[in-house]
């Protein structure tokens, strides 16, 4: 297969950036999208052009590093996939493909297709944990039974990989899906109850401080989320936030 690629090149956060066009051929349909970029980069190095910088690591859809905006969609065409799980068989021979970074005010571009998502880490640091120290003397793990539906729902929320596709997709660049997934995980479990009010207030505050936009319930985040995180989590977080605001001491 052969492709024409329009790739966003940007030297650093201060650079204005521009689109560059490259041709790649000898692409097989079994290749992943990132392996196709590997081919492009080997080719660019041969031509004396700096290779395209992009984030990637596990290449099996779980680390959350890869983050390309392909033909106007976070992680490209197809549902429930990260960029590394997208395969070239999803495209037609001769296609022109446009590749941009995840764009949001809170995700500044570092170089080319690589963005800074440390805002997500700071949201977690604001309260995305249960305050329990390492100890060999905690209650037995089965001491508190948890209803299976709650445990399963907490798990579903906890499968968020923190890639930022929700933010890149949202017209407001809102991080509500990401933040609400973590709030929900703990809201559904008995272990999370003690700090529930502080957690939701502090995480939402940090989210706003980072410059993420507001949620207007378009639901685009849920559609593009590679892990299928539901917007029910946003509803749950709003409920948690409201009750915390009313009862906070």
């Amino acid at each position: 297969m052969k492709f024409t690629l329009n790739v966003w090149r940007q030297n650093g956060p201060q650079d204005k950036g521009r689109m560059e066009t490259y041709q790649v051929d000898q692409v097989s349909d079994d290749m992943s999208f990132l392996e196709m970029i590997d081919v492009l980069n080997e080719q660019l190095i041969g031509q004396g052009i700096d290779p395209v910088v992009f984030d990637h690591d596990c290449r099996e859809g779980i680390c959350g590093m890869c983050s390309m905006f392909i033909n106007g969609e976070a992680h490209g065409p197809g549902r429930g996939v990260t960029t590394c799980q997208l395969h070239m068989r999803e495209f037609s021979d001769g296609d022109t493909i446009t590749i941009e970074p995840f764009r949001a005010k809170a995700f500044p571009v570092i170089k080319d297709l690589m963005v800074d998502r440390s805002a997500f880490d700071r949201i977690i640091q604001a309260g995305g944990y249960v305050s329990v120290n390492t100890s060999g003397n905690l209650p037995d793990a089965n001491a508190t039974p948890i209803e299976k539906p709650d445990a399963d729902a907490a798990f579903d929320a906890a499968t968020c990989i923190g890639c930022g596709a929700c933010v890149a997709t949202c017209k407001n660049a809102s991080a509500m899906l990401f933040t609400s997934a973590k709030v929900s995980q703990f809201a559904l479990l008995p272990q999370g109850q003690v700090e529930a009010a502080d957690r939701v207030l502090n995480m939402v505050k940090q989210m706003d401080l980072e410059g993420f936009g507001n949620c207007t319930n378009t639901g685009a985040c849920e559609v593009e989320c590679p892990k299928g995180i539901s917007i029910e989590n946003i509803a749950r977080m709003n409920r948690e936030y409201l009750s915390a605001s009313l009862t906070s001491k």
Partner: protein
Amino acid sequence: MSTLNAHIPEGPIAEKWTKHKAKIPLVSPANKRQIDVIVVGTGLAGSSAAASLAELGYNVKAFCFQDSPRRAHSIAAQGGINAAKNYQNDGDSTFRLFYDTIKGGDYRSREANVHRLAEVSANIIDQCVAQGVPFARDYGGQLDNRSFGGVQVSRTFYAKGQTGQQLLLGAYSALSRQIAKGRVKMYARHEMVDLVLVDGKARGIIARDLVSGELERHSAHAVLLCTGGYGNVFYLSTNAMGSNVTAAWKAHRKGAFMANPCFTQIHPTCIPVSGHFQSKLTLMSESLRNDGRIWVPKKKEDAEAIRAGKLQPVQLAEEDRDYYLERRYPAFGNLVPRDVASRAAKERCDAGHGVNKTGEAVYLDFASAIERYGKEAAHVQGLHQPSPEKIRELGEAIVESKYGNLFQMYEKITAQNPYKTPMMIYPAVHYTMGGIWVDYNLMTTVPGLFALGEANFSDHGANRLGASALMQGLADGYFVAPYTVGTYLADDIRTGKISTELPEFEEAEKAARERMEKFLTNPGTTPVEVFHRELGKIMWDQCGMARNEAGLKQAIADIRALRERFYKEVKVPGKMHEMNPELDKAGRVADFLELGELMCLDALSREESCGGHFREEFQSEEGEAVRRDDEFAYVAAWEFSDQDPGKAKLHKEALVFENVKLITRSYK
């Protein structure tokens, strides 16, 4: 025989750890505040160690090359974590977990370390549940378990096929809490490029800020390497693209011995290689072997017809299939340990029964599980004489609830539906049991340098059991290192801050800079990737699932020649003081090119077959491994010398088995 002191405490095995902990000198809270600790790597071992040490009061600096500590490759572990909780009342105990691990490791691990691992395993589950890790539960609200290879109890805790993710996010949340408190200073997108020794002690690291390209000096009273394994020396593996040996190798060059480097785990159930440009391999969790049956066509002509696309696997009658694991190992069947399952797959494929285009794949079939579950579900729903279609439908729903994400992952990669046609799988490099030599306190041969998790060698011998890597990473980080690192630091309360202006830091930084500048000014034309791929092929062919003397000698010569070519011909674009992933990669591949030679040297010197190390010269008539306990019941710890990985000196730590009798491992 041994020049190494493992510092194993005296006394009966079940009391060693308790007694040792009781005798450990303590550091007072006020003094802890004066002590700095560096943790390199933020996977399960690194995150849990950094969080736990910070909770105790030490000043911790943590480093990872990814953009966030949450992305370390522990995140990709699928199946589960073992713990001797005996919730299923099926006869599990600390001793049984200890015994299974020693036996599974083919009697090449250290008894005292493994027993401690089994002892703290139950604490890990309690800790994680308290953190809000959402493990799978049954309808009574209790934690659920499943079985993994090489054991006959159900002791594996899991969170669907994403157990590693959930455990790492638990450790990451504990770490985040300490970062928020200012107890941990986090350096993401930083790579350790050298270790700094002052007066023979590990006192800091040189790190490269991967965004600015600047070299930084960081000092501490102790350094913990939690940098994972080196499976990427094979180029293709289930490791993440960035997983590398550089931190461990730099430590090795500065005096840390590498132990049993040839012990690598080839995982039996991975998605087969599809083409030349493949960058990594994807694992299909071992948990699938609970329900999947592995087979190849009995007749070679059927296998040929399948390879040519003239025959579909579902068309093959039951009597024409060879369920070779069930045939060879009736007691454990499809749940034999990984090394045994991998070799058996290779044996069938080498004999011409492989089923994909390249002949390097076997089937993992869920048809009988779907039927069994379907019938069960029909019975529960009170359906009498359900149609085969109804049974299939019900059965597929249950298989989906158990393995849904894995089936989906398989379908995305291969474009085949595993509910309708058997999966194709083949062994791939997955884990490295070998690693930096550590004593009972997890300290390396360099004072003040510790190694935790996959980066060390101590617990898994020559073969790791499934769901034990997560257990070891968290055991080391949460429950071992916080005690044992303190033992070492108790002598350091009067040392005061270590200056980064010391000549040792200056020299290490200069050496690192020169290495990088050399790459950037090299007049070559070949990208780094090409050399890595070539190294991987040598390693896989000669130091992979089967090894022999002639092949290993050839591999050593080939690697030396490749290394020479690498330094002459490699082209690294870009500059030093900027983000430059090609430069990062060049440094990593340079270290793999040295490690590969040491692995072959180790494999050559170990004239026996054990666990993942299969020397063709040492096998029984039925093709089973022949271990030679009289001569090789030792840990091979290699000391770097003469600036040449091939001139490493061998030190032997004799393995003494007082609680387990050495027998030939049999899963028949």
